[in-house]
């Protein structure tokens, strides 16, 4: 009896508040370190918010975008988005021109993360700034500089589907102008052809067989 009650007392004193807190802290620390070290999927516990539609698929891999705690660099974005930026209307070339260079003070347009932050509220196309962001430089367009645009709302430039910030190729006035009044079906309806040329007239003999029966790696 005596030994049982002293055991109980031992267990009770083990479950005091300090031990619980200490244990919990150690538990969390070790769990975090182990999680980091293992590079596994549960790194999502570090995400500060919902990841955008385009990036959520690999959101557990912090190092895809982050190099330590440094700011996410343009170079990192262009690892994947080079094709989208081949004809960047608001790229470096634009702001090297003295007419537009000062506009960079209104909005740091040459830094991807100025408009494309991550893990925060988005307004479509991975843009986290309010949809009237174009007004930082183009306010005049809806206020008398361009009669056709008088009275247009400040947030409609891109959300209405009329303008793209980066790639103008297929939505610029010139493009629309050149292609007006085409018939619903063009005279020639075809996508580029793929031709596969055979190098042999007959298939060769298969050069492996028994290997497949044995499995392999």
């Amino acid at each position: 009896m005596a030994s049982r009650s002293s055991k109980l007392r031992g267990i009770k004193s083990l479950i005091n508040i300090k031990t619980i807190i200490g244990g919990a802290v150690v538990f969390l620390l070790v769990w975090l370190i182990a999680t980091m070290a293992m590079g596994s999927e549960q790194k999502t516990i570090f995400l500060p918010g919902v990841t955008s539609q385009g990036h959520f698929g690999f959101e557990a891999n912090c190092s895809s975008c982050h190099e330590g705690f440094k700011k996410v660099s343009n170079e990192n974005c262009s690892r994947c988005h080079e094709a989208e930026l081949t004809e960047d209307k608001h790229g470096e070339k634009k702001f090297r021109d003295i007419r537009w260079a000062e506009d960079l003070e209104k909005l740091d347009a040459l830094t991807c993360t100025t408009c494309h932050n991550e893990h925060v509220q988005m307004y479509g196309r991975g843009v986290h700034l309010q949809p009237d962001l174009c007004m930082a430089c183009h306010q005049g367009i809806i206020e008398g500089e361009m009669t056709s645009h008088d009275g247009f709302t400040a947030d409609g430039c891109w959300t209405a589907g009329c303008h793209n910030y980066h790639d103008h190729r297929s939505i610029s006035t010139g493009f629309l102008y050149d292609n007006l009044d085409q018939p619903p079906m063009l005279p020639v309806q075809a996508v580029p052809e793929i031709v596969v040329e055979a190098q042999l007239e007959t298939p060769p003999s298969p050069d492996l067989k028994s290997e497949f029966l044995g499995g392999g790696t």
Partner: protein
Amino acid sequence: MKKVLAIALSLTLSLTLSMGFCFLGNAPAQAQSMTEAEVSDITAQWKGSAHALADVNCSSCHQDSETKAFVGKPDNESCQSCHEAETDTFLLGKHGIRRLEGQSPLTPAKARLPMKAEAHGQQMNCNACHNVHSVDTYQASVDSCLTCHNDEHSLNYKNSKHSQLFLAEGNLARPSNASVTCATCHLPREASESGSNALVNHNNTYTLKPRDRMASDVCMNCHGMEYAFNSIFDNELVKSNFAQPPEMHLKSFDMVRVLQQKREGN
């Protein structure tokens, strides 16, 4: 002593939890031994394929080029050794990006779009869509997509005029340049600058947004601009997989028409 015990307990518990999570879902693919009948079936598929006539033999993919060791399940790298542009673009799209970033391949279970429940475990590799032995891109251009995709736009494809065009062609080795499949729009053929064979851009995300990219790069191969733009910007029409001609009329065209009249008037 008690504290040490508590710390030891937390350590063990947290490590076990982390390890447990880590190994979940990361089990290595088991190699399978095949029967004679399976091997002859696959050999027959290969014999009728473009690979066989291009002298791409079993060992081209199933043998390590340096060590000559047998490779039961060749990975994307094997395909990449010949199909570099296709693999590189695949890795930039939503289907392949997880692999590019060193993670396990995407499975439909991870998608935000509706996917078929029975396909939830399917890993996105080259051979998830391509039968690599028959090299039949007819199947890869529609049926492969519909084994996973279960949203309205995808499911309505088979009732669309585009689908009728495709079905009218019969079963070819690959869709002709006049048929419209899922791949025609989402993995578009791009004429190469050098004038050689067209490239199939396997970045399935590229033509999705902005939508005018889809209109100009894909729709306008066959349709006039206004028809294309009025269709692609109509969410209901997209959902129905373009079941009827567009009824929407984008105001942009009226604005450009006013400009045109002004210029021509001058």
